[in-house]
C-alpha cells in the first residue's frame, strides 16, 4: 500500500447465497484511494455499489479480501474495535440523511464528537467552523423536521466532518435532492476534499456528481473498472436541461415512442405529470426563448 493511500481494498469480494444461487455482489475488487482524492462509483441498480461502500466503511464483513484505512486492516479488528474506526476514521453521508430527529442541528453535528479525544467540549470550535462553512449557523437550533433536503444533507456532511475523519463515504448523497441542491452538495464534497485533505468516495447514480470526481469507477456484475476512458452519450434532461449520460442514466421514461432520460427522480416525476410541455419545448429550447 502506498504511504499516501487513505483507503485500499485488496481482492475484496462479497458473495451471497451458494451453488446455483450464488450472487457475486462484489468480486475481487482492488483499488487505492489517495489523500484528497474524490472517487465516484457508478453502476446499474443492484450492481453492488452500496455493498462495496459498506465493506469499505466497516459495516459489512466481506467474504474475502482486505480493507485498509491508513495502515489498519479493518476486517482483522474485533467487532468491538470496528465502532472506533467508524467514529474516528470514517464519516458517513447517506441518501436519507439519517439525522436524529430529537436533536437540533448543532447537536446532530456534535454527536460523533463525544467519541473523539477531548469530547464534545474540544470540538466546539470545529463545530462552529463547520456550521459557518456549511451555512447552518442560522439554523443551529432547528430540528431536522423543519429543514429542507439540502439543509439536512449539509448537516449530515458537517456531522461526517466533525471528527476530521480522513475518509468520507457517501451513499447517493444527492439522491433525495433536486438538481440545484444536488449540485450544491456535490460542490461541498468537492471543497471538503480539497480543503480538508480527506478522501471522498461517492456511490451514486447521479451523473452530475461526475463533475467533481478525480476518478469515476464503474461497477457492474461485481467487477469494477475505470470509466473515464469510455464513451459517453450525452443528452439533455428535457425538464431541467442538464447534461445526462444516456447510457448510464437511471431515470428514464418512454413517451411517444421515444426514450427520455433524466438527471433525477424529481425531474422524472415532473415530466410524467405533463410530458407534452417538456416534449414540445424541451428545457434547452425554453431557456433560449426566455433569454
Amino acid at each position, binding site marked *: 500500500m502506498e504511504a499516501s493511500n487513505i483507503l485500499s481494498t485488496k481482492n475484496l469480494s462479497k458473495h451471497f447465497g451458494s451453488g446455483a444461487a450464488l450472487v457475486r455482489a462484489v468480486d475481487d475488487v482492488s483499488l487505492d484511494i489517495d489523500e484528497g482524492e474524490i472517487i465516484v462509483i457508478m453502476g446499474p441498480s443492484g450492481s453492488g455499489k452500496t455493498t462495496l461502500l459498506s465493506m469499505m466503511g466497516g*459495516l459489512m464483513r466481506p467474504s474475502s479480501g482486505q480493507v485498509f484505512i491508513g495502515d489498519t486492516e479493518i476486517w482483522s479488528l474485533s467487532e468491538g474495535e470496528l465502532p472506533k474506526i*467508524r*467514529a474516528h476514521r470514517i464519516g458517513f453521508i*447517506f441518501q436519507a440523511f439519517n439525522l436524529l430527529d*430529537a436533536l437540533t442541528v448543532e447537536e446532530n453535528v456534535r*454527536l460523533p464528537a463525544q467519541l473523539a479525544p477531548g469530547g*464534545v467540549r474540544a470540538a466546539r470550535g470545529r463545530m462552529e467552523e463547520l456550521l459557518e462553512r456549511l451555512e447552518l449557523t442560522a439554523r443551529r437550533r432547528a430540528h431536522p423536521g423543519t429543514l429542507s433536503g439540502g439543509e439536512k444533507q449539509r448537516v449530515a456532511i458537517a456531522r461526517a466532518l466533525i471528527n476530521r475523519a480522513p475518509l468520507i463515504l457517501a451513499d447517493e448523497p444527492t439522491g433525495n435532492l433536486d438538481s440545484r441542491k444536488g449540485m450544491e452538495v456535490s460542490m461541498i464534497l468537492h471543497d471538503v476534499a480539497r480543503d480538508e485533505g480527506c478522501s471522498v468516495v461517492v456511490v451514486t447514480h447521479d451523473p452530475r456528481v461526475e463533475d467533481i470526481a478525480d476518478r469515476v469507477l464503474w461497477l457492474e456484475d461485481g467487477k469494477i473498472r475505470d470509466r473515464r476512458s469510455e464513451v459517453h452519450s450525452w443528452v439533455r434532461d428535457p425538464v431541467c436541461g442538464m447534461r445526462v449520460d444516456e447510457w448510464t442514466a437511471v431515470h428514464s421514461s418512454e413517451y411517444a415512442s421515444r426514450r427520455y432520460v433524466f438527471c433525477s427522480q424529481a425531474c422524472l416525476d415532473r415530466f410524467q405529470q405533463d410530458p407534452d410541455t417538456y416534449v414540445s419545448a424541451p428545457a434547452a429550447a425554453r431557456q433560449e426563448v426566455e433569454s
Partner: protein
Amino acid sequence: MIGRWTLKELLRARARVVGSILAVGVSFALVITFRAVWEGETGQLAVYLEHAGADVWVMQAHVSNMHMASSYISEGKRYEIAQLEGVQSVGAILYLNTMLEAGGRQWFSYVVGVDEADQPGGPWSMFEGRGDMEPGEAVIPATLSRLTGTGIGDEIRIADRLFEVVGLSSETFSVTNPVTFVPAVDLADILSLAGYDSYLLVRADPGVAPEDLAARIREEVDGVAALTTPELVESDVQLASQMGTEVIALMTAMCAVLATLLVGFALFIHTSHNRRELVILKTVGFSNRHIYGSVLIQALVLTALAFAFAVGLAGTLAIVGPRLAPILSLSITFGALVQVGIAGLAVALAATLTLAHRIARVDPMSAFNQ
C-alpha cells in the same frame, strides 16, 4: 450527547412514557401499600403493649410473646414480685385470644381482663363512654363499633357470655388484633380460672432501669419470664413478621416481576420505535455498550419516575385510605421505600438486559435503506 438524545427521545414519546410510568408506578405502589398495610398491622401489635403502663412484663416461663400466646401464672407471683427491691407497683391482666360476636359478625379479638381496682393495662384513651367496667360490661374499639354497628348499650358475646358495651376506646383497633376490655373476674369465669393471672405489669421505682429489674425478676422468681416493654414489643413484632415475611416477599416478588415486564415491554416498544436512531448511532461509531447505556438510562428514568409516582400514590392512600376504610391501618416505612427502590434498580437492569440481544442485532447496514 447520547445521554441528551436519550432523554429527548423519551420526551418525544411522552404519551408512551407516561403510560409506562403509570403502569410501573401502580405495581410499585402495590408493593409499598402491601408493606404499609403489613407494617401498620404489625405496628398495632405494639400499641397496646406500649400504652399498658408497664416497665416490665412478667409472664409464664418460656413465654416471650403476647401475640398468639397463652400465659398463666399463679396469683402468688404478683405478691412475690411486689416485694422485690426496685418494684414500685404490680398490676395484672388476664388475656385471651378469641372470637367475639358483635352486631351479628364474628371478629377475632384480644380480650383483656382488667382488674377493676386500679386497672393497669386497661383502655388509655376513650372515644366515647367510660373505661371503668362493672362485671358484665365491656369496652370495645371505636372502629370495631363503627364496623359492626355496635354502640354504647348494645351487647357483645365472648364465648358464652354476653357483655354490655359501656365504652368505646381509641387506638385499640387493627384488623388482626382489636383489643376488647372486660373485667378480670368475668374473663376468669370464662376461662374457669381462679387465682391466676396471664401477665403482670410491673412499674419500676424511679432510677431503676427496667432491664435490671427484669433481670432481677428472672433471677429471683421461679417459673416466670420477664421482659421489658421494648423487648416484648420487639419479640411480638418479630413473631408477626416471621408469619408474614413469606407472604410479603411473594407479593413483592410478583409485583417486581410485573414491573420488570412492564418496564421491559415499554423499553421494547421504545427501542423498536427507535430502531432507525439506533442504526444511525451505530454508523456514527457508537458501540453496543454505549447503546446499552442509553437504554439503561431510559430504564432508570422510567423506573425512577414510576417510583416517585408510586410513593406519591401510596402516600396518598396512607392518608386517605384509613379515612375511607377505617379497617385499614397503613404505615409507610423508610425501609419499605428503600426495598422498593432497590427492587426498582433491579427492574431497570433486568429490563435492559432483556433488550441486549435485540440491540446487538441492530444492523448498521440498514442505514442505507432507511
